[in-house]
């Protein structure tokens, strides 16, 4: 029984001439225990897809079954409870509440569940220990490094023991070391049986995934299974077609070799940055990559 089953899901924004198709009849089935990387250029509908799967948004058309239950027509309160009990969200910008301590941030989902204070502190402490931050319980988010902050966010996503983890570019704001830390953590969580969906621009990170889904213009254009530890075949192509120098670099005579010093992670980082910051180029190259 699939945990996620999308059938011809469309999401439209705006009206009339201004209508923008964020998702165009997307069908996707994900089995429990999959570790899915979602790739694609900015604006291709990845985030919209994540929001719909995570019950934050509803599809305009189509059917979405979460755990074999039709979910597109549920009421707001029901959806909130599903988010609380079944889904853990991890965001690119961490989204911890700045006025609460690390521990309080992690207990928050349990507060909404109605758990007693003692119980929820215990659970949250355990979870922080699991992400290796038990000595930071009473810090405020602003006192943590990016990687640590994301680990706290992961602890918060996990504290309710959700079946599904949705991470929208979890490493987007992190350097490569922190990215690795976060991905290792997610990979560990995956080993305990959770289903994980994550969005990334970094082909290198497909190493962690068991399946890679490529999106373009609101459609899933490619879907492949991949072995853990291997960069997905298509993603590898994307990686090598991403230009690592900009036009300015070319004019100035800066070579790729000067920017990337043989270190593969640095190269990937450079590539990843290109795709996010220089979106037009990134889009072009991704398109090329996916078509091949």
């Amino acid at each position: 029984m699939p945990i996620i089953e999308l059938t011809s899901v469309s999401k439209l924004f705006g009206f009339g001439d201004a209508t923008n198709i964020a998702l165009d009849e997307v069908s996707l089935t994900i089995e429990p225990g999959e570790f899915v990387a979602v790739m694609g250029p900015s604006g291709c509908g990845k985030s919209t897809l994540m929001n719909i799967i995570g019950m934050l948004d509803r599809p305009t058309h189509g059917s979405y079954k979460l755990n074999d239950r039709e979910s597109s027509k549920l009421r707001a309160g029901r959806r909130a409870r599903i988010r609380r009990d079944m889904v853990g969200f991890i965001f690119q910008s961490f989204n911890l509440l700045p006025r609460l301590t690390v521990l309080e941030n992690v207990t928050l989902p349990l507060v909404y569940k109605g758990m007693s204070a003692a119980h929820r502190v215990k659970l949250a402490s355990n979870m922080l220990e699991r992400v290796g931050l038990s000595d930071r319980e009473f810090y405020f988010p602003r006192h943590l490094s990016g990687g640590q902050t994301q680990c706290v966010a992961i602890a918060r996503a996990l504290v309710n023991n959700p079946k599904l983890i949705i991470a929208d570019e979890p490493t987007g704001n992190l350097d490569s070391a922190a990215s690795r830390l976060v991905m290792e953590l997610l990979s560990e969580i995956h080993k305990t049986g959770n289903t994980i969906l994550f969005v990334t621009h970094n082909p290198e990170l497909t190493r962690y995934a068991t399946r890679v889904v490529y999106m373009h213009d609101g459609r899933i254009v490619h879907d492949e299974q991949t072995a853990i530890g291997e960069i997905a075949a298509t993603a590898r192509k994307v990686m090598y077609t991403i230009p690592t120098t900009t036009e300015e670099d070319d004019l100035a005579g800066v070579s790729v070799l000067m920017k990337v010093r043989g270190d593969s992670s640095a190269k990937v980082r450079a590539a990843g940055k290109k795709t996010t910051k220089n979106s037009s180029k990134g889009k072009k190259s991704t398109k090329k990559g996916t078509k091949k």
Partner: protein
Amino acid sequence: MSSVARGELKMAIAAIRANRWRSLLTMVGIIIGIVSVVTVVGIGEGVKQQIASQLGQFGKDLITIIPGDIHNQTSGANFAGTNLFSGPTSQFSLSAQDLRTIQRVPHVAATAPLSQISGKPSFDGHTVSGITVIGTSPDFPKILNQKVPEGAFFTNNETDENAAVIGKSVAQRLFQEDAPLGMSFEFRGRTMVVRGVFNDFSNVPLSPVANFDNTIFVPFDVASKLANNAAPIYTVLVKPDDPTRTKATIKNINSDLLRTHGGQQDFSVLDEKQAVSSTSHVLDLMTKLIAGIAGISLLVGGVGIMNVMLVSVTERMHEIGVRKAIGATNRQIWRQFMLESSVLSGVGGVIGVLLSLLVDVLLHAYTDLKPSISWQAMVVATLVSVAVGVLFGTAPALKAARKDPIEALRHE
């Protein structure tokens, strides 16, 4: 569930403390409203208590007869008539004939008419204004249990004499002396001689009761002559010979007067309790009026809270999005903001109550007012301020609760 409520309360307090200045300034509206309402009500209550204790000191068997029917008045048409000792503003008055009727009622032991005569007394060429002159009978000090330590009150044999007994402040203001016994002053062309000086009357500020310390008492017959035999009596005070007969005496006086008035109930015979309530009637009305006006500032404070909560909701849109993403229901978000606004206004209310206690102490120390703030008033004030928070917090809380989570998350 209670631990959850506690957790939410903690969050609300944390949110309020995060914006200390803004929260305090928001509370100012509520604080001012609560302080003014509580203080005004306290002053009104204090004056009422003073009147009651003053009349209580006159004795439980004191019977008061005033013109006008206070039992059957139509919407304050006979406003002035409700005041005890309110002679000068009364539309009606009692006559010397009525006084004689009352005196003939069985078991009436003592009667004292109160009849005010206009005019300013002068001494040694100086005329002093603001002194009341009242004509009354020799029974007056006995009925009011008031002592005349210097000299004596005029007796039944002196009702024709130009004798006067004065209140303490008259002694100071007119004669600049403590006991100007035997000294004389001019009033309406007559020379009056001071026979005695009263002890301090227990006076009640703001009450419609005349200030007897500032009054010259002359024999009723003299007063009648001074006023061309037409001294209007605004009150007759009566004591029965036996306190247990008070009720019966009231009935008798009423029926006798009714007969002489041709069956018209254009007067009222009151026992001590009724006299107090008739006196407090106008005061009550005044208190309500001023408290109502002060209450408007509570509403203004409420609007202030609403304004700040709306700003706060907009500012924290992203937070709302995050909370919804991790599983907060609309209801829980709503409750969070409701709690915040009611804690804000509730704390304002408590501060307001504490401040009004301080104002109370200051009023006691520096004015004649003796405000009395009951614990009921404090509880009600606090509850009302919480209610204001609930009332004006609803719209912002709904705004927060109904926000689409995606939109809220996009908000930075």
